[in-house]
């Protein structure tokens, strides 16, 4: 599956059910096989497992490596440790616990140990709740210029995953193929689906 296709599916309501269970199983195996990062300062090993699994569910390996390979979890740990407020961090960590609770209630094990399909069901639940709350009045701060993580857990998780992935060496160099010095401006050229912009 190509990255664009994965993103297109992410944008669809039925994103997670549309992905094959084989892919999720492979994702899970890879995740379990990998060592835990030894440098985490806020996330416990168990919390880290959830972050790794959930971020890689959102941006799986396709034609390019995914969130796990890009070490999005380490970026999230940095942000939680040195950037987030106590309140924001509490929302995030509570969200991870909630992910575990929901998975336990439905499938009798934690999120990280769940199958890809089970994880997808949980994440889809978070996503639908967030979508349903979209029209609620936001705190004043969120609508101003201030960059904040004072959002529901899943909004934090999704945002940090996207930022962490696309600002990583994998995201910048392999996925986006960012040119630091384009050299010329081409304001309006026909885009071809297979061309990286």
């Amino acid at each position: 599956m190509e990255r664009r296709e994965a993103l297109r599916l992410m944008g669809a309501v039925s994103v997670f059910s549309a992905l094959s269970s084989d892919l999720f199983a492979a994702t899970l195996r890879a995740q379990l096989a990998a060592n835990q990062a030894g440098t985490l300062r806020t996330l416990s090993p168990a919390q880290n497992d959830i972050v790794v699994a959930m971020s890689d569910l959102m941006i799986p390996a396709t034609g390019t490596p995914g969130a796990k390979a890009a070490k999005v979890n380490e970026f999230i740990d940095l942000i939680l440790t040195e950037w987030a407020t106590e309140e924001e961090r509490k929302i995030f960590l509570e969200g991870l616990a909630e992910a575990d609770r929901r998975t336990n209630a439905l499938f009798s094990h934690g999120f990280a140990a769940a199958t890809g399909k089970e994880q997808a069901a949980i994440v889809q639940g978070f996503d639908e709740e967030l979508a349903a709350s979209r029209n609620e009045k936001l705190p004043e701060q969120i609508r101003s210029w201030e960059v904040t993580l004072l959002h529901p857990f899943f909004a934090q998780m999704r945002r940090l995953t996207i930022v962490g992935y696309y600002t990583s060496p994998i995201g910048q160099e392999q996925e986006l193929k960012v040119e630091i010095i384009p050299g010329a401006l081409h304001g309006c050229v026909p885009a071809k689906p297979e061309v990286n912009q």
Partner: protein
Amino acid sequence: MRTVKKPETYDAIIIGSGMTGGWAAKELTEKGLKVLVLEAGRPIEPDRDYVEHVPITEMKFRGMNDRRETLKDQPIQRTCYACDEWASKFFVKDTENPYTTDPDKPFAWIRGRQVGGKSILWARQSYRWSDLDFEANVREGMGADWPIRYADIEPWYNYVEEFAGITGQAEGLPQLPDGHFLPPMEMNCAEIVVKEAMARQFARERVMTIGRSAVLTQTHNGRAACHYCGPCHRGCITQSYFSSVNATLPVAEKTGRLTLRPYSVVPSLTFDQQTRRVTGVKVIDGQTHKVMEFHGRIIFLCASALESTRILLNSATPEFSTGLANSSGELGRNET
């Protein structure tokens, strides 16, 4: 650029090395004057200090900025979009430069204290005023008529723009006079669609034109064309946008008549009772805190609107107890 230690006499002393200070330095040195530029902040070496090509992967917070540090040290500066993880070093630390305002009149004083001042950081958009602007207050019956019109200032627009290099599309609009533009930047596909739709709907009543900015779209006066890396406020190693560091100061330097003194904080000017002129500038060295004085035939205050005002207010003498150039009592008031 040379630095000096001992008080010297210059033909002209310019306080501030930003946008206006750079222009003054260029014009005066080119006309043969020996010029001292005093800059309160540190020197800027483009090779060392510009960071526009540093990839986001190398930034600790990946462009999300060091939130805690800036909340602590730059709570005001960080409200400016350009005060990002790369360029926050070009903004002052608010903790070191405190000020107060009326509680109901907050003011975000965005400041750059370095050679180049805020000219490194400005947004580069460059538009000429027309008589619609020069006559606006008269038409609305407000205040006194401005003593200048577009015809008076047009040659100066030409003069400045010819050196700076302004990209844009000539449109022949009376309300937005054209300059002698460098080629315009291309619009993107969506912009083209909107422009064409507006032209169909409104003809000349509503015209959409590409931004006019002090960015080179072709080689100009020895400076290279823009290479579209994007974040101009982090510096420009190819000198493709206009700033004092990129354009005016190098020309002044080339004359051999420029002395640029960084770390030179100016508390006040010296008024000479005998000649009835400002003849000197007091300086406190920002690093050694040593107090010194420089003398010059002409003094240019180019320290920004508020800093220049402060220097005049701080230059009070027994005779001018409310500050220099303040016989009206209006100095520092009515600033908007």
